[in-house]
């Protein structure tokens, strides 16, 4: 059954739509098996630390659209960190063809106690009108919050009413924090709002246009695609509303991470006839070759792809060999979002490193397209073998601290902010690479390998930091099983 329904105002959260989970301990192959048999059950924690919520991720999908404005409907704190997107938009614009990035227009309805009693509908309507007058954007997105959700404001009704009046799309995005433990549900909610309100049925096809669902990484696809006679249509950061409207004219959709783009890619395929690539993103040699060949098939560029792959192999394989010799046998630990975490594990194996384990933020047993070939964890296990100590853990720092303290890998690879600190406090070289395109293709293996070798070699800073580290965790906790608070039967005893 399709998970995409653009007629509905809301998209279901991942737990319900895909059966995703945030708590698991075991090995990667056990998780794949459980997921295949439909035996995946989530585990609860009796101790937990501050999680992210869907609001940030939903905003991430829409605030960097060039001509958009975003309203957070809730208390002012629910927009607290959204200023980050203003910074990102500004500093990465130069990588993505936006020479003079303009101020991001981010608003809060500034809900107060009165509104929680009498409702915030009027305030929301007034805010949409004011934002329209102030910004004159081509679309206004409204992201909802716990407060507006629980008091039951009619965000959908208000959006429709004011939309009629002002004549531009007003797209409500339902992403209340309490609805999902998986903050990536926010991406789905954001893309649902994009697909419902902006994407138009194709008037014609552009046979060289490929949609790429991504964040704000450097323009590697642009370079690759030039050699293949293709053009990259990046979605949604730095796109214009007009560009999004015609994304239905593309010949295919690819994505840098199925955790990110699952829903938008499926919506483009199922509602607008743009096929989604059914291969995991191009990290590591095997996936890179599979991915490019599939792209060649979809865009009728099989020969160009073979030439491309041959050139890439010739250029990069010798260096990959040298890096394998330098890094072979070193141990690593990974903490990252689901699909990107699988990509990083693949890269490590490709370079000859030995992952001791991983703390991956959630697990989707299936993506919205519903095909097995997209299962990036399964692909990882089949290509490189099992990963021990595979922990699904929604960024619970206390578990990570405990694990790092006992595993002491040669390197910690992280993908979300805040985690590398703990590697460093234990003197473990720790690496976070923000550009999500960095590790792709043959070249990506080399670039990542060099950075890893560099981090391992230059460990003076982390060694020094470790000497002066302040650790708020109790000695007792560091000696417990890291999963002591995971699952009802595993309550930690003995304090």
């Amino acid at each position, binding site marked *: 059954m399709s998970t995409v329904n653009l007629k509905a105002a809301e998209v279901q959260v991942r737990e319900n739509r895909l059966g995703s989970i945030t708590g698991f301990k075991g090995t990667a192959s056990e998780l794949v098996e459980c997921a295949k048999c439909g035996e995946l059950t989530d585990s609860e924690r*009796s*101790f*937990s*630390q*501050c*999680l*992210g*919520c*869907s*609001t*940030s991720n939903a905003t991430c999908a829409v605030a960097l659209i060039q001509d958009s404005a975003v309203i957070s409907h*809730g*208390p*002012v*704190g*629910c*927009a*607290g*960190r959204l*200023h980050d997107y*203003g*910074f990102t938009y500004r500093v990465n614009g130069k990588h993505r063809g936006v020479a003079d990035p*303009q*101020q991001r*227009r*981010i*608003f*809060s*309805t*500034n*809900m*107060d*106690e*009165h*509104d*929680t009693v009498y409702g915030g509908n009027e*305030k929301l309507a007034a*805010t949409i009108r*004011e*934002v329209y007058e*102030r910004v004159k954007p081509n679309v206004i997105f409204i992201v909802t919050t*716990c*407060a507006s959700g*629980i008091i039951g404001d009619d965000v959908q009704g208000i959006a429709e009413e004011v939309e009629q009046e002002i004549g531009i799309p007003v797209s409500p995005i339902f992403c209340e*924090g*309490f*609805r999902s*433990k998986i*903050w990536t549900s926010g991406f789905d909610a954001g893309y649902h709002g994009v697909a419902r309100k902006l994407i138009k049925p194709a008037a014609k096809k552009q046979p060289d246009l490929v949609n790429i669902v991504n964040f704000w990484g450097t323009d590697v696809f642009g370079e690759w695609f030039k050699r293949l006679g293709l053009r990259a249509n990046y979605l949604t950061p730095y796109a214009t509303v007009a560009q999004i409207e015609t994304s239905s004219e593309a010949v295919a959709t690819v994505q840098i991470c199925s955790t990110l783009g699952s829903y938008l890619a499926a919506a483009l395929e199922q509602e607008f006839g743009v096929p989604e690539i059914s291969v995991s993103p191009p990290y590591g040699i095997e996936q890179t070759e599979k991915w490019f060949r599939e792209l060649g098939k979809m865009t009728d560029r099989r020969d160009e792809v073979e030439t491309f792959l041959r050139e890439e192999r010739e250029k990069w394989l010798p260096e990959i060999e040298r890096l394998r010799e330098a890094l072979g046998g070193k141990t690593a630990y990974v903490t990252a979002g689901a699909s990107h975490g699988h990509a990083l594990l693949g890269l490590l194996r490709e370079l000859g490193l030995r992952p001791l384990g991983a703390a991956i933020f959630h697990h989707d047993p299936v993506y919205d397209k519903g095909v097995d070939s997209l299962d990036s964890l399964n692909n990882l296990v089949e290509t490189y073998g099992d990963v021990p100590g595979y922990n699904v853990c929604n*960024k619970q*720092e206390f578990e990570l601290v405990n694990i790092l303290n006992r595993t002491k890998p040669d390197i910690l690879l992280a993908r979300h902010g*805040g*985690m590398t600190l703990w590697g460093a406090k234990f003197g473990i070289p720790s690496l976070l690479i923000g550009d999500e395109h960095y590790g792709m293709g043959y070249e990506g293996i080399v670039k990542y390998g060099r950075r890893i070798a560099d981090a391992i070699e230059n460990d003076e800073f982390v060694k020094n930091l470790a000497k002066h580290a*302040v650790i*708020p*965790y*109790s000695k007792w*906790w560091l000696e417990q099983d890291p999963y002591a*608070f995971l699952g009802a039967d595993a309550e930690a005893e003995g*304090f």
Partner: protein
Amino acid sequence: MPGLIEQQRFMCAIGGMQTVVAIPRAVPILHSGPGCGVMVTGFFDRAKGYAGGNTAPCSNFTEREVVFGGEEKLENLIRNTYKVLDTDLQVVLTGCTSAIVGDDAAQVTKKFAEEGKPIVFVDTPGFKCSNFEAHDLIVNAVIDQYVDLYAYNHTEKEPGLVNLFATIPYQDPFWKGNLEEFRRILEGIGLRVNLLFGPHSKGVEEWKTIPQASFNILVSPWYGLSIAEHLREKYGTPFYAFPYLPIGGNETTRFLRGVAEFAHLPEERVERFIAQEEKVFYEELDSLATFLLEFRYGLPGFVHILHDASYVIGVSKFLLHETGIVPKEQFVTDNVPEEHHEKIRAEMAKISDKKTIPVFFQPDAGAAQQQIREAAGESAGRGLIIGGGWDKMLARDLKYDFISASLPSPYRLVLTTGYAGYKGGLRLIEDIYGKVLDTYN
């Protein structure tokens, strides 16, 4: 009904978790939806402290707690917090979800307090107030639920000991540096200071001596006032209030003399300290004056400030009298409650006896920016904007100089720099003219 806010410069009530984070070895425990702690840490940046940010325990409300309540989950969370983290003080803060569904988090917290745990409860749903107001609520709650139980002595005053309430940690990007300077100058005139926050504070040990202070010092036009009033009522501690941040020679001297007069400190020692400090301060100004008066390639002539009321008044006074930069339209962005507006206007009116400096209370900083754009071209000379990261592009568009001094501040790194006092004034001068000189290649 307050209106929309564009480019927010402050947080909601649960942003007060940073007040807890600033107390050495204290931990905030959030009974809230997921995302609250991340929004707070993301607003402030580099604000993790000892046990904030990703370390802070949180009940992370799900649909189930919204329907069935989350009291049991909170109880487990608190119990396990004692196992996992080593902390001296725990402060339970509620978010919107908990408040709207009606959890009795106070009762849950009380159980642990009755077991003898140093734990405090504060109701801080985001819709209730800003983090400026929540700061007062939290400090008062710690006083009532912790200090009052554990204080060494509730009645006897210790001569020379003062509690200082001069800054909102983290919301004031210069809080650490400012506190350090306040301590230095107050010690200079013979006092001992409970800073209460930051690395120079002795943590909960210091909090336990709050009732013993012979008086309190409040440096603020409005926030912190209810703390000083509460302590006056509770422990009979009088307070001296100075209504803005004292920056530079004139204002720091005025502040110290005010404190000295209030506390009847020996004049000779106070004046000796002031004379020495002024000598150091004005030696720099003296050697700078030629540059300020003669630099022929252009220096800022006027300034717009977007900051909280304390900074707007303090920086305006300082720049006008000690550097010659003229304050034009000023914007108080900290959502000051109406009842304090008059007092702040009166203080702004005192900045110059020759001219009126227009001040606007504008938490919607997007609207403030629009006003600055409209005023462009009205003033002669080169403009300066002192604001937050949002204002960098505004300054660029208008070709003004720009200092990032309020939150959010993604384009500037501040560690222990302060702008308060004699030293802070010199530092602010260095920052402004250093940035200006940087524009010449």
